[in-house]
């Protein structure tokens, strides 16, 4: 019957329009981020950003992360393996996107720990013990203090340092950059300014490896 054709053609047309629209949108987003990477590289790496890896590395892995985010925690060992597998070629840049309620508390602790030269140790402890204090149904941020002594940090100093307005400013800047770069979920990865389009371990590995091939 003719009516059935009209209906089928309409739905196929609208779905194709949807797919076509997504394609156009993604393309425009890529172009915009590519433009930012070329003309405004500091949006990816600020002077205040904590980095790991050789300064000669040609592949910059930028991670917008949240200490209270489970996926960031489970991605962390993977990112470290990636760096170990390509020694000297990858530089990890940590940016903050503390989207969880109250997560900036942990960023402040991290940044205070950085002043004592124990940033990565503290991050490690945070990710490892996260399930105890960041449980979604019952977040208990104060519990983090129970786990910190193992890092050898001067906790009294942390408590005074973490209120440094400089840290609050840094978080604000990172959140503003995350917004510009359309990062709405954590972890948000960029490799040399290219966004990780499809989220996943393999996809991240593929993106990093393609950048390594392009630069070495």
């Amino acid at each position, binding site marked *: 019957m003719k009516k059935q054709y009209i*209906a089928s053609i309409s739905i196929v047309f609208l779905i194709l329009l949807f797919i076509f629209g997504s394609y156009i949108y993604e393309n425009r987003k890529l172009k915009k981020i590519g433009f930012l990477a070329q003309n405004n590289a500091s949006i990816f790496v600020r002077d205040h950003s904590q980095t790991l890896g050789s300064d000669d590395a040609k592949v910059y892995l930028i991670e917008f992360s949240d200490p209270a985010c489970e996926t960031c925690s489970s991605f962390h060992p993977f990112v470290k393996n990636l760096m170990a597998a390509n020694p000297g070629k990858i530089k990890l840049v940590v940016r903050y996107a503390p989207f969880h309620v109250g997560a900036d508390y942990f960023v402040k602790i991290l940044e205070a720990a950085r002043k004592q030269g124990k940033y990565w140790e503290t991050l490690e402890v945070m990710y490892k013990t996260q399930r105890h204090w960041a449980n979604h149904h019952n977040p208990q941020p104060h519990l983090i203090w129970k786990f910190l002594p193992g890092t050898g940090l001067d906790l009294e100093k942390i408590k005074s340092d973490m209120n440094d307005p400089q840290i609050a400013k840094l978080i604000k800047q990172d959140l503003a950059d995350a917004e510009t770069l359309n990062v709405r979920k954590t972890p948000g990865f960029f490799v040399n300014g290219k966004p990780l389009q499809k989220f996943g371990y393999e996809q991240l590995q593929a993106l990093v490896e393609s950048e390594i091939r392009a630069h070495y």
Partner: protein
Amino acid sequence: MNDLDQTTNSNWTIVFICWIVAIVSTLGSLFFSEIMEFPPCALCWYQRIFMFPLVFILLAGLFPFDRNIIKYALPLALTGGGFAFYHYLLYSGFIPESLQPCSQGVSCSETYLELFGFLTIPMLSLISFWTITVLLLILKRRLSQ
């Protein structure tokens, strides 16, 4: 006989247009959340709950044409339209922010998009629900005549 056919045809077309509006709204809202990655707020979810099933219910009413479709589709369209109206009031500031129901996560009054400078997402939803409602009411009148 021919006249009767003509009327049935235009009745069918009215439901068909409602169906198209429902599909465009459904795909549009999915585009906003999945492709543009705007997180849907609580009120948006309530509107989605009433819009998404319309796609299937209206389609079922089209093949074969079922005059009872009004009975099934109108309550959904009216309720969704109610939520959309409330959302629109909240969005445009007629209802103060402190009265809004979503306490955590995404704010219902944050502006994500303004098409052509005035079309916001709640307004699009309002237009869709009300178009469907008005068309179904017109159909109801026609069928009772």
